[in-house]
């Protein structure tokens, strides 16, 4: 039994602990069953899902950068029908909450995805991806204009009874503006940040490494940006935040709580250290005990600006 209370209530999404794994970095959870006690996770944000199966981008899809990596997978996924029929039944008995990340080319796609997933069993919440930098249509475009972002979120909220999480892009001039727009549109939760658009060039061939030319930067390189954005958005909205971006260990996760996140998601670190999510849960607990807090809720958003 835990000596401290790690549970959090994110506006209707109740998690037994505040550590999730980020979409695209943990597959559909069972990829990590050999390394992790999946039942200990608060939630798993499964691979980005579209209406139709998606082939994904050409290769190379990945490029390593200092303290980070660029990816341009292009939302390769088996499609929502396959997810519902073949994958969700396999993971429904775990105690983590399954959050399905959805992406569309147009608003109607998001509505259909939301409707299908709402009638499926084993889905705890939807994460609306309006910030994927690696697909040509939709994706990021929805996430950079407040009105468009609000339009997508409204459509999803109308089509589902599940808690709706909106995943924000950092590739904007003022993230608080988008955050307010999606809050007003009815988003229950905000997750942030998605990857930062970046590029790496092979100086021998004088061509970009990624087949897609540009890709999303993740890993510890982006963490200070993510912490800053969580802090700013926490000041701007009243709905709970799921913070992510370069969390490699529990100290990093704690920064996000202090900045205003009610839960955290671990992404790229899963690739480096498959056990990282377990270590982060333990580290948060140890920190709370050391600091004499009885609950993780005691540290959410308590950072005091200088």
């Amino acid at each position, binding site marked *: 039994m835990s000596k401290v209370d790690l549970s959090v209530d994110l506006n209707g999404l109740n998690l037994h602990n505040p550590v999730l794994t980020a979409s695209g970095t943990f597959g559909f959870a069972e990829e990590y069953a050999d390394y992790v006690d999946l039942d200990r996770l608060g939630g798993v944000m499964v691979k980005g899902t579209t209406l139709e199966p998606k082939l994904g981008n050409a290769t190379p899809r*990945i490029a390593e950068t200092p*303290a980070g990596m660029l990816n341009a997978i292009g939302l*390769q996924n088996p499609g929502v029908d396959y997810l519902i029929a073949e994958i969700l039944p396999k993971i429904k008995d775990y105690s983590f909450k399954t959050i399905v990340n959805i992406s569309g080319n147009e608003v109607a796609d998001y509505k259909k995805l939301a409707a299908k997933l709402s009638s499926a069993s084993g889905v705890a919440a939807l994460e609306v991806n309006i910030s994927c930098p690696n697909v040509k249509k939709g994706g990021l475009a929805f996430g950079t204009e407040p009105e468009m972002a609000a339009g997508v979120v409204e459509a999803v909220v109308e089509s589902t009874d599940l808690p709706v999480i909106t995943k924000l892009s950092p590739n904007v001039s003022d993230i608080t503006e988008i955050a307010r727009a999606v809050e007003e549109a009815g988003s229950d939760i905000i997750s942030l940040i998605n990857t930062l658009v970046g590029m790496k060039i092979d100086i021998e061939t004088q061509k970009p490494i990624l087949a897609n030319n540009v890709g999303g930067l993740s890993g510890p390189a982006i963490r200070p940006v993510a912490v800053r954005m969580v802090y700013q958005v926490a000041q701007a909205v009243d709905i709970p935040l799921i913070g992510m971006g370069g969390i490699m260990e529990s100290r990093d996760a704690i920064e996000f709580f202090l900045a205003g996140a009610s839960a955290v998601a671990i992404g790229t670190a899963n690739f480096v250290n498959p056990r990282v999510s377990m270590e982060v849960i333990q580290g948060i607990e140890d920190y709370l005990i050391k600091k004499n807090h009885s609950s993780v809720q005691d540290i959410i958003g308590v950072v005091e600006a200088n």
Partner: protein
Amino acid sequence: MASQSLAKIIANQQLNSKDYRLLISAPQIAKEAQVGQFLHLQCKEGIDPLLRRPFSIHDYDRQQGEVAILYRVLGKGTKQLLERRPGQEIDVLGPLGNGFDLTNTADKVVLVAGGIGVAPLVPLAKELIELDKEVAFLLGAANELELLCMGELEQLPLQLKVATIDGSLGHQGYVTELLEELLADSYGQVFACGPEAMLAAVQEITLKAGVEAQLSLEKRMGCGTGACLSCVCKVKVQQGSGFEYQRVCSEGPVFRADEVIFDE
């Protein structure tokens, strides 16, 4: 079942100007390893480089609980690896991937190794010899100094043929040129590992000859566990003329030559 463990380094031995052999103590991996599978190593603790590096399992001793890999120093990760010393611990995931399929193996088989691609083919040769197969081993490299595992291969009951690009030893030219000659001689199956251009040549030659082949692929890899979808290659779909992307780390690294599609 794959696991994540801290393995003690037993030896990190230089083989030539750029190739090394790393021997680690990893009893669980040694117990479960299948030829053609790989390990995903964190070359050094820290965040630069951030990602692990995949290496074919080169040797394993189930009794001693030891596993070896071969690596060529090419970038930051492998430079850090060569600085690792016996007695230190290294974070290892494995064994990963599918390995070679040894069901219904032909009686006479050819193994084609290019450069560091020899790594998984030496244990494969041993396994095939155990299975009483007649093995021809074609070993290719840029030059004589880069021909790996020669001594070990010469000790095995197999037919060894060598090719070097510069002609410093054996046939001058590509190792696949030796394959073309051999296939006329009733060899029923080919196993290959090496640079993609070599694998594409093996594919072309074996398809033309109507001989089954298995190719061990290498791609830029992220997680190694099947989650990130970075290391994919094109594989023909069952119906129609299209393709899908499959994960080298999970559906591979070994693919049938008649299913994989190499980009031009």
